[in-house]
């Protein structure tokens, strides 16, 4: 089975570039250039050196002993939460900012939901001295005030998206509209494995460092680069794609993606796209998305703003369809309890997004010798407000 992209920019039935003609030159330029630029030695050198000295990679692969004991398996955490800015998002923005520079772009735009990708983008723009404009839903600006302040401190302009439901999907629309109106000097740094081809492929390539390191680290820990299970949470799906990337063809490694069920898959307040979605087109790619019978995009819900997205990346849609990855749904309550559990057992406060992957442990049965890797995509600092309210701290 082929899980990878084909030369038309599709993963099976999913992907492509459903974009208005105004975006065609930009997308075409990227499509023609990105692989060439990424393959250049000076790109690779700068990418690797920034990941090492600026981001702090390789991120540790940590054997969580007390968690392992509780669930009766060998559970390893891939510590993306220890990256500079606190999540995996920066792997992608480092890659894209170098690319943008090589394409001669002077201005960077991005969308953000929780603000993690916005912060990671503002960070690399400050690092490179490039103008930075971040689109963020008006509702999210209020929910995520500390991240808005971070972006501003680093010199980014944060523009409220006031259209539609005023959240992540609308911020993405606004960023694309900005790009349509500024086609020549601007690069759009998309924050997940979504959008028109080649974005999903490019972002997963930059995030694939997660599984590349994990394989090497597993050999050091266990002598075998193939674990039994790999788990990651799925919003748009970038940390999951990075975590799955080098395991896709290892068919004996079970891959599990945890989506946000919100208040429950059938509650009407959910973001479990693989269960609730249907095939269609969202933000420039053919994928699975939550929508009405008439094809209007419906508003998702999750307690974690980073999973609050009505679609999944096209490669996830494909991996779902061909059943290479099992997608599971985790409710707000399950994720919150898992956050508390990891904090108490290991002294690590995870992002609520990442806790969706952790919460799946409870629903599985393991053999003692099973090796399980979980992508800890981010740290919980940004979620303290939510934790305080939820647990009455």
């Amino acid at each position: 089975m082929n899980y990878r992209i084909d030369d038309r920019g599709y993963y099976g039935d999913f992907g492509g570039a459903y974009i208005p003609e105004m975006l065609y030159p930009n997308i075409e330029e990227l499509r023609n250039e990105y692989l060439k630029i990424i393959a250049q030695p000076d790109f690779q050198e700068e990418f690797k050196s920034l990941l090492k000295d600026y981001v702090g990679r390789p991120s540790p692969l940590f054997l969580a002993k007390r968690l392992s004991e509780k669930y009766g398996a060998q559970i390893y955490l891939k510590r993306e939460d220890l990256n500079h800015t606190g999540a995996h998002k920066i792997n992608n923005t480092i890659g894209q900012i170098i690319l943008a520079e090589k394409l001669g772009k002077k201005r960077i735009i991005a969308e953000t939901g929780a603000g993690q990708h916005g912060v990671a983008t503002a960070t690399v723009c400050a690092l490179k001295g490039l103008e930075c404009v971040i689109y963020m839903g008006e509702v999210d600006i209020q929910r995520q005030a500390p991240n808005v302040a971070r972006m501003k401190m680093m010199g980014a302009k944060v523009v409220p998206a006031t259209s539609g439901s005023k959240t992540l999907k609308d911020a993405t629309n606004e960023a694309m509209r900005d790009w349509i109106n500024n086609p020549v000097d601007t690069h759009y740094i998309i924050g997940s494995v979504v959008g028109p081809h080649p974005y999903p492929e490019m972002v997963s390539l930059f995030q694939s460092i997660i599984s590349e390191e994990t394989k090497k680290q597993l050999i050091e820990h266990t002598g075998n680069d193939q674990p039994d299970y790999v788990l990651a949470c799925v919003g748009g799906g970038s940390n999951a794609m990075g975590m799955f990337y080098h395991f896709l063809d290892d068919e004996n490694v079970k891959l599990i993606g945890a989506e946000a069920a919100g208040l429950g898959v059938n509650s009407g307040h959910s973001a479990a796209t693989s269960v609730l979605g249907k095939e269609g087109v969202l933000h420039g790619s053919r994928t699975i998305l939550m929508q009405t019978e008439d094809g209007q995009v419906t508003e998702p819900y999750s307690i974690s703003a980073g999973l609050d997205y009505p679609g999944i990346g096209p490669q996830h849609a494909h991996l779902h369809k061909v059943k290479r990855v099992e997608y599971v749904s985790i409710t707000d309550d399950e994720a919150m309890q898992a956050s508390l559990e990891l904090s108490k057992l290991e002294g690590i406060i995870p992002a609520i997004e990442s806790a969706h992957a952790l919460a799946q442990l409870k629903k599985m049965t393991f053999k003692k010798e099973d090796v399980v890797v979980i992508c800890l995509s981010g740290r919980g600092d940004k979620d303290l407000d939510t934790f305080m309210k939820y647990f009455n701290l």
Partner: protein
Amino acid sequence: MNRLKQLFEKKKNNILSIYFTAGYPEIGATLKIAEALEKSGADFLEIGFPYSDPLADGPVIQKSSHVAIENGMTLKVLFEQLKDLRSKISIPVLLMGYANPMIQFGVSNFCKAAKEVGVDGVIVPDLPLYEYEELYKDDFISNRLSNIFLVTPQTSEERIRKIDELSNGFIYLLSSSSTTGKDLNTSDAIGDYYNRVKNMNLKNPLIIGFGISDQKSFERANQYANGAIVGTAFVKTLGNENDYLAQIPEFIRKIRA
């Protein structure tokens, strides 16, 4: 022959097309607006079917889509309303909207329904050339629908030729790379771009759209193309006035003046 082709054979310049969103400002407005536009002298119409996430549109048309959805407009409702189209209107009518609602309806079903009610063509800004050619072209052709593609100042000559080859109605020339509702680009460079396209001697007529809002911009567009499309300015007028139908003759008269 399709009505669009007849129009372009009869009329070579100053062609005026008006865009409006179906179901805006009220659900039952669609055909009433269409009738008023024909009576007032519009040459052809673009009826928008609304989408929740209209990427290529500015705030005015976004809002009209949003209101139309709230009013209950769907493709099903629209095709129901358009059953009376050809008993009321004789000028060409195009449907304009985004790929996702059309895909949910089924592209083949969509094309059949469009033909049945007497629609002449379709504009779907986010349906790319490649997918159109590979997946959907036969549905369009067998239902005698023109598929209209957009061209921007950044579109390469090679691609314009390809678009011309695949088009069978007109080419929708954008005044600049922009979302709908920006002012018409009036820089000198834009004249060069229009002339460049004009001098390519394409088989399809050229109609300029995006940023045409008044008599001046309409006239300027007609220096280079066979006609022009007014969208945002018209939708704005519909939203401003309680008696939206009464405004239509005056709106068209001012643009034509």
